[in-house]
C-alpha cells in the first residue's frame, strides 16, 4: 500500500469519526500532523483506529520514552507493518 492510500484512509477516519476535514492536498501529511501534534489524545486514539483499520498492532518500541513518532515516521511504520 502506498503512502497516499494510507493517508487517504486516515483522512477518512479523521473526517468520519472526529469531524476533522483535512482539505484536499496532494500530500496532506503536514496538515494531519498539525492536528495530531497539538492534540495528544487525538493522536493516541488515532493510533488505536489505525491498528483497527489496517489490521496491524503497533509494537511498544515505537513509543520511545522521549521521542514520539511524527506522522512521517508513523507512515513508515505502518508501511513496514503492512509489508511484514
Amino acid at each position: 500500500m502506498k503512502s497516499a492510500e494510507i493517508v487517504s484512509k486516515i483522512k477518512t477516519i479523521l473526517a468520519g469519526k472526529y469531524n476533522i476535514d483535512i482539505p484536499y492536498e496532494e500530500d496532506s501529511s503536514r496538515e494531519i500532523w498539525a492536528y495530531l501534534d497539538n492534540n495528544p489524545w487525538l493522536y493516541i486514539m488515532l493510533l488505536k483506529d489505525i491498528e483497527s483499520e489496517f489490521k496491524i498492532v503497533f509494537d511498544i518500541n515505537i513509543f520511545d520514552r522521549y521521542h514520539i513518532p511524527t506522522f512521517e515516521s508513523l507512515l513508515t511504520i505502518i508501511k513496514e507493518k503492512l509489508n511484514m
Partner: protein
Amino acid sequence: MASIIYTDYFIPEKVSIEQLFEKDLRPFIPEAYDSPVKYCQFLRETLGIGEIGIGDVEDSADIYSSLIAGFIKESKIDPAEVSYIVTAGWNPLLQASRNEELDFYTDGVNVPYYLHKKFGFVNAKLLNLEHYCSGSTYALGLASSLLDKNGEYMIILTASFVPRIDNRFKFYTICGDGVGIFVVSRRSVGLDIIDFDSVTMWHDSYNKYEGSPERLKAFGRQFHAADLVKSLLAQNGLTLSDVHMIIPHNVNSGVNYLSAKFLGIPLDKIFSENTSKTGHLLGVDIMVNLKDYMNSVRIPDGAYLLITAASNDIGGSTFQTVLLRYNPNQSLPQ
C-alpha cells in the same frame, strides 16, 4: 494484613457533555467546529467521556452521612472500633455544608469533624490527605501501615466537586462530581492490600521531551506509571500475567490504551467501562471502578487486582499503585 472490606459511592444527577457544551462550556468550543454536537462527537471519540454527574459541595455532609450509615448498617461494626477517618482529595470537601443538623453555617464547617461527632467515632483520629486525584490511593497505602501498628478500621472518604463549571473541562478530561468511601480493616477479611508504591515527578522531568509538550507529557506519564506497576509486581515476585484486572482512573480512553501498550497487556485487562459514564472523579474513580467491577464479575479465588492512580498537582505529578488480592475465604466488599 489489612484489607478493603467495603466500598460505595454516590454520583449526582448526570448531564450529557452535549448539554454542558450547549450552555456553560460553549466558549471552549474551537472555531473549527461549527456546532457543539460536532465538537462533542470529537470529545466522545478522543476522551471517551459521554456524561458526568453535577452536584453541590454543600451537600457533602449529607452524602457522606448516607454512605457511612450504609456501611454501619451492613457491617454492624461499632463506630467506636473505627480508628482513623481519612479525608483524601480536594479541600472543598472539608468545608461548608448546608446540613440542617450543623450548629452553624459557615465556610469554616469541617465535614469530617461533623461526621466524627454524628456517628460517635470516639476513637477515630482524623487525617486529611490533600492530594487531588490520588489521595484515596495513598490512603490505601497508609492504611496497612497504620492499622498494622494500632487500630481496627480506617474509613477513607473522598469527593470530587468542581467548584466552577469552566474548571470541568481540561484538554485531557472532563471532571464530574461524586463522593466515595472505602473501609479498610486491620484483618484479612476482603480484598487484601498486598503492597503499595508511589513515584513523584516534577515538571522539570518533562524538559527532556522533544516536540509538543502536551503530546509528550501524555505519553511520558504513562511510561512512568507503567514502570511503577512493573516494579511493584516484581517486588512481589509477580508479573502482569498474574494480574486479573487493573482498576484505573477514568481520565480518558487514551490513557488506558497507552497503559495497555506500555504494559504489554490486552486493553480488556484494564477496567474502562465507567469512563464514558462518569468522567474523571479524581480520587473517587477507584472507588466507583472497584465496586462496579467486583459487582460485575465473579473474581477468582486469590486473584490479584491492581489499582493505578495519578495526580497532577501544582508543580508536578505523582503515580501510585496498590496490589490487592481477593481473599477467597471471606465475603466480597459490597
